[in-house]
């Protein structure tokens, strides 16, 4: 009972003082809400970027991956010789290898005839190179000349491909080469490409006639079940020449993510935005707490004269900070949630509201209010009961 009161009474006083002045309370809540939404959006965009940066590699079906040493990221690969990939078969733990071809190409919107660039993937239709069922189901169909599958998560500027297929209007041009869209799959856009098309290696060469089956962009290696990826990776590094990098699945994802986080200053920009949101919120909450203590100086001094201890007022200040954090976080969370939905539906960025994200923003907001309280309690010294008579 005593310990509950120890916290409850200061909390109750803080609450009563907060709700007394509606205008000031609204301003304070808006301040926290603003910081909250800012941080949520920064983290949302950053995670969306990372997620979309890896939307292609995350869907590749392999144990080890080969890329040219000079490839900065999958979307701008440097070609290397297919024979290099074939040499991996020399290791007994390697079950199979498959080449993957990538190229950016303009895709003509069937309705508006406007061209827009997307990423074209060419793979061996006898392999399962993707972890996407919709692609694997159509492997036989893709062996037909000039057939492609279209990523329905592509930006809407490419046209309502799903409806058009249903209406039998599935013919279009990629790089001015006529193809038929024979189905849809789901992968997701990235900062590098607004849309994706998957086709067979032979069809890929028809779209890109200057390309050659012997020059590949990514090599997919499948291991005999039960073999150790890291061990085989080490063995292959000895076997292959030095022009290629070998990645495990996880390493490939990291490689792609790090490209955007480091090579492009995007990780820094979003991190900076997060810190700015935190600082702006801190200043606003500090201002509110500070003026609150100043305005209540006489009241606090009176309570001190009556026998309230300094610790009580410190608890009142921290309770105010906590209440502001919670009162600002709840609407901030709601607003961020709807902004995430808006982003997902309007700019097709994957912006999921995860529990981890909500928790880390809540922690940021709590730390922000806590530190604002910590700076503000110095002001409590001014409440001197000796001045009250």
């Amino acid at each position, binding site marked *: 009972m005593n310990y509950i009161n120890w916290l409850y009474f200061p909390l109750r006083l803080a609450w009563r003082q907060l709700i007394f002045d509606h205008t000031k309370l609204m301003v304070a809540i808006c301040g926290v809400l603003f910081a909250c939404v800012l941080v949520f959006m920064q983290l949302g965009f950053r995670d969306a970027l990372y997620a979309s940066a890896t939307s292609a590699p995350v869907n590749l079906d392999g144990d080890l991956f080969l890329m040219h040493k000079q490839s900065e990221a999958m979307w701008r690969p440097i070609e290397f010789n297919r024979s290099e990939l074939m040499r991996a078969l020399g290791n007994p733990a390697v079950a199979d290898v498959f080449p993957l071809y990538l190229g950016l190409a303009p895709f003509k919107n069937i309705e508006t005839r406007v061209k827009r660039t997307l990423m074209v993937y060419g793979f061996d239709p006898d392999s399962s190179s993707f972890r996407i069922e919709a692609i694997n189901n159509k492997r036989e169909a893709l062996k037909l000349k000039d057939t492609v599958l279209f990523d329905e998560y592509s930006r809407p500027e490419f046209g309502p491909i799903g409806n058009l297929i249903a209406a039998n209007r599935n013919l279009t041009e990629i790089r001015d080469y006529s193809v038929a869209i024979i189905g849809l799959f789901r992968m997701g856009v990235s900062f590098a490409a607004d849309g994706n098309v998957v086709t067979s290696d032979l069809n890929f060469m028809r779209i890109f006639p200057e390309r050659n089956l012997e020059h590949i962009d990514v090599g997919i290696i499948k291991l005999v079940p039960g073999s150790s990826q890291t061990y085989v990776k080490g063995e292959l590094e000895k076997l292959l020449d030095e022009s290629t990098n070998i990645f495990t699945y996880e390493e490939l994802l990291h490689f792609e993510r790090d490209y955007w986080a480091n090579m492009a200053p995007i990780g820094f920009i979003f991190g900076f935005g997060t810190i700015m949101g935190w600082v702006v919120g801190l200043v606003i909450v500090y201002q509110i707490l500070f003026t609150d203590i100043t305005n209540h100086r006489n009241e606090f001094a009176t309570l001190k004269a009556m026998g309230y201890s300094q610790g009580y007022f410190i608890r009142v200040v921290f309770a105010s900070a906590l209440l502001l954090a919670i009162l600002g976080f709840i609407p901030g969370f709601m607003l961020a949630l709807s902004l995430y939905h808006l982003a997902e539906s309007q700019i097709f960025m994957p912006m999921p509201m995860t529990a981890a994200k909500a928790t880390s923003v809540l922690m940021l907001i709590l730390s922000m209010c806590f530190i604002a309280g910590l700076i503000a309690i110095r002001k409590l010294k001014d409440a001197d009961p000796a001045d009250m*008579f």
Partner: protein
Amino acid sequence: MQPIIDVQNLNFSFGSGALVQPVLKGITISIQQGEIVLITGPSGSGKTTFLSVIGGLRQAYTGSVVVLGQQFIRSSEQARVKVRQQIGFIFQQHNLLKSLTALQNVSMTLEMNSQLSEQQRQERATAMLTAVGLGDKIHYKPDQLSGGQRQRVSIARALVGQPKIVLADEPTASLDKQNGYEAVSILKKLAKESRTTILLVTHDYRILDVADRILELEDGLIRTA
């Protein structure tokens, strides 16, 4: 009988070094339980200073000040806070918390006492507000009350904890004659019922008749009237 307030040769100065300004210059006085003592005197004679030393709000360093058995000279803040919890303070300004209702303001005194339940606190605060004639206004906030009503709320706040001592500094200064006299009469009536000691500073000669004893402070010294 042991006096409830016992002051021996109390000296108190403001400032330090060359700027030191002696305000209380050797005050000696004993006050018994239940006494109502009025302190008057010219402006600047040290009445407020004296009251704040007795109330443990200012630290004094020479002489002896024993209040409710606690020596205040060179005492710790903690020891004085303990004694302050048994003292009711009434200020010249009502000093109520403006975001709280009358009832909540009065309950603040009782929230330091963890022995009481929330319901007991509510009942006592309501009873005390009724005793000062505000039974129908317990849910009003200070800015919805008149000056006299606010001062009565602060009297209720000072008395609800059943203090041994009430210290009041010009409680009627912001009130008109009628309201001022009424407030002090209520204070006296409630104090006499519970044998509470009252020390009240006033310039208001109309209320001198409530006193058991009147002290006159002049230039830091007591001149018994």
